[in-house]
Every structure is written in structure tokens, then in C-alpha cells.
């Protein structure tokens, strides 16, 4: 990273994330660089799939327990609670809600994304563990929907995150979300859902697109 770029990023950095000095209990000075000390700087690696029947077994296991991060970005998130109610009962498909990114494998982008939300979505996605999948709901994530000419919402999600399944509709009913989950299962079982590897491979391209619109990039380049 060049010095100029570094200064550009320093300008937006929150005070607690800047380099600073802490006085220890015995009066010694400790220099802290939070971005390097508190975050892992390693970039993601491509994990090649195993060969043959082992990968098939793993994919079957992955497909049958999809743990969804409970993170609603737009109006579509109102369709998710009924999904877990007795009427639609997504649990019978092995779909469960999880409260934190570290525990979950599926990120549902439920509706339009403003730039401010996209920043939080990227952080959440990068903190999730491999293998991870992205489902995008509604026309807003496909081509912007009714916010296609807005100054503050993105038009195409696949420019910023690798999307496995788009579910069309405005907003999709819980039935179509269930059908989307089944489609995702098929993809995983066929070994097509390689979004995390795609993200690791084309990281530079994704990061360039993300940094083009997130102008106050005040977090590490990749958030483990």
C-alpha cells in the first residue's frame, strides 16, 4: 500500500483504530497499531475441493444444514420471520437462524442495499467461515429495482459479493424463498456453489469495486 493511499485511509480511521501509545502498568510504553495487531492480515485462500466421493459427502452435509445469518438489509427481511414460523417451517429443510457471522454459512441480502449498509454486509460476509453462500432477494439486488436511479443504493449485488442464488420478486413470498433454498441445495450438491473460492480468486476486482463506492474505507482491507 502506498503512502498516499495510507494517508487517505487514515483520514477516515476511527480514533481507536489509529496507531497510538499505551502506558503499561509499570510505566513502559506500548505502541499499538490496531489494524495490524487486532486483525489478521492474511488474505483468503482458494480451498480446492476434495476428489470424488468425499467431496460429494461433504457437499451433502453442507447442503442439509444451512445456517442463516439473521441480518436484514431491506424490506425483504420482513419475509424471513414467517419463514421460521410453523406455517412455512424452514427448519424441516435444515435451515436455521444464527445470530453471529462466525456461526453461519448463508448470508441473505434481503432487499435494497445502501452504501452504508453494504459496508456492514461486506464486514459480515468476510467474517463468515468457509464454505459460505449468498442468497439475494428481490429485484433491488438484481438491477436496483425501484431504486435504480437512486444516489445511495447499489444496482447490482454481484459486483460486490459472489451471489449464488437470486430470488426474483418484489418481495418474494416465503414459498419462493423456500424454493430458493432448495435450488441452493441442488447447487451445493452439484458442487457449483463455489462463491467463497470465487471471492478469494477475484479479491482484487471485488475490492476495487467496493472501494469505488465506499469512500470512507476505515476498516482493514479484509476483515477476518
Amino acid at each position, binding site marked *: 500500500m502506498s503512502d498516499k493511499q495510507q494517508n487517505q485511509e487514515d483520514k*477516515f480511521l476511527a480514533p481507536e483504530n489509529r496507531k497510538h501509545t499505551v502506558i503499561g502498568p509499570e510505566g513502559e510504553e506500548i505502541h499499538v497499531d490496531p489494524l495490524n495487531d487486532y486483525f489478521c492480515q492474511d488474505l483468503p485462500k482458494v480451498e480446492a475441493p476434495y476428489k470424488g466421493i468425499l467431496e460429494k459427502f461433504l457437499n451433502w452435509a453442507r447442503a442439509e444444514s444451512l445456517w442463516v445469518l439473521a441480518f436484514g438489509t431491506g424490506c425483504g427481511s420482513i419475509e424471513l420471520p414467517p419463514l421460521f414460523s410453523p406455517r412455512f417451517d424452514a427448519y424441516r429443510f435444515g435451515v436455521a437462524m444464527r445470530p453471529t457471522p462466525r456461526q453461519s454459512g448463508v448470508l441473505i441480502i434481503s432487499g435494497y442495499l*445502501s*452504501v*452504508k449498509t453494504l*459496508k456492514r454486509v461486506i464486514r459480515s460476509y468476510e467474517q463468515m467461515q468457509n464454505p459460505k453462500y449468498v442468497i439475494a432477494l428481490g429485484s433491488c439486488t*438484481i*438491477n*436496483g429495482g425501484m431504486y*435504480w*436511479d*437512486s*444516489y*445511495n*443504493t*447499489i*444496482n*447490482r449485488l454481484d*459486483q460486490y459479493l459472489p451471489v449464488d442464488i437470486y430470488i426474483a420478486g418484489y418481495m418474494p413470498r416465503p414459498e419462493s424463498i423456500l424454493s430458493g433454498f432448495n435450488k441452493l441445495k441442488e447447487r451445493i450438491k452439484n458442487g457449483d456453489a463455489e462463491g467463497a473460492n470465487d471471492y478469494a480468486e477475484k479479491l482484487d476486482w471485488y475490492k476495487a*469495486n467496493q472501494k*469505488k*463506492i*465506499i*469512500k*470512507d474505507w476505515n476498516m482493514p482491507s479484509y476483515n477476518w
Partner: protein
Amino acid sequence: MKEIIDHLKKRFPVYEIGEGPNGVILMSVEAAKLVPMLTSLKTNHGYGILVILSAVDWLEDCKFQLTYIINNPDEKRDLGIRVFIKREDAEMESIHSLWEHAATFQREIKEMFGINFPGSPRVDEPFLLEGWDNLPPMRRDFDTKQYSEDTYFPRPGRETNDPAEYMKQKLYPDE
């Protein structure tokens, strides 16, 4: 209601008095006299609630309009006060000393219209737009469609139809 208007007419340079929707009385006042007038209405006439503070961009007249709507809970009556300020280096006196929550309205207006309110708490911090480096987006000379096309990778193949012609073709294809 009439006595308040008469009273205000005597003390402040109000003009364009009229009635808006739902019985709200609208009037305009010079920018310099706004804060004394709001103070008087709040302390002497029971208008204790600031309902909303909003802005309008009159691009052709080179003016911004600020609308303060205040409410009298005892009489269940709304009063709207308009102020016109010039568009270049727009600046208005802050009313956060009268109503604390006005600071939030002012912060939003600063971000969306670029109208400055000196002294208002946290008025320079971003409210919705983080790291925005263009014209304030609610100004009418900001081209939001152009900005979106330049920035957000529009997906090709999107069609728009003129509603009148489209329905004509659909309903009366022979004509």
C-alpha cells in the same frame, strides 16, 4: 387563532398568511426575525412542540425555503412558518436552544441540502451518507440518475416505456 395572527402581525414582519391542508396556518417571516418569533410563540402562546423542520430547493428563484411546523397541544393546532434564505453559501440560525431535537433535523438538512447551521451540535458529522464527496444530493442541480449510472454499474437491458404510448399500443393496436 385570529388574535395570535394579529399579535404576530404587530410584532414581527410576517407576510403571505394563508391556510394549508388540515387547518394548518402558514406564514412567512424574514430570516432574521425567526428565532425571536419562535421563542415568543413557545413561551407566550403555548406552541411547545416542534413537529418538523424541512427544506425546499427553489432553484429558479435561487432560494432555499425552510419550513418550521410547530404544534400547540392544548389547542390542537399547527402553525407553519416559512423562511426564505439565499442559495449561495446558505446559512441559517440554529434553533437547538429552543428544541434539542432540532439539531437532528438541522444535521440532516446540512447533509442533504448543504444549508449550514453554525453552532448546532454535531452538525458536521455524517448522518446517512458516509464519506460523501459530491453535491448535497437533495439539491435540484444534483443529477441523481447520472450519478447512479456513473457509480453503481447499471445492469444492461433495462427498458422503460412511456405509459401513454404503451397503453395505446396495447389497447388499440390498429389505430
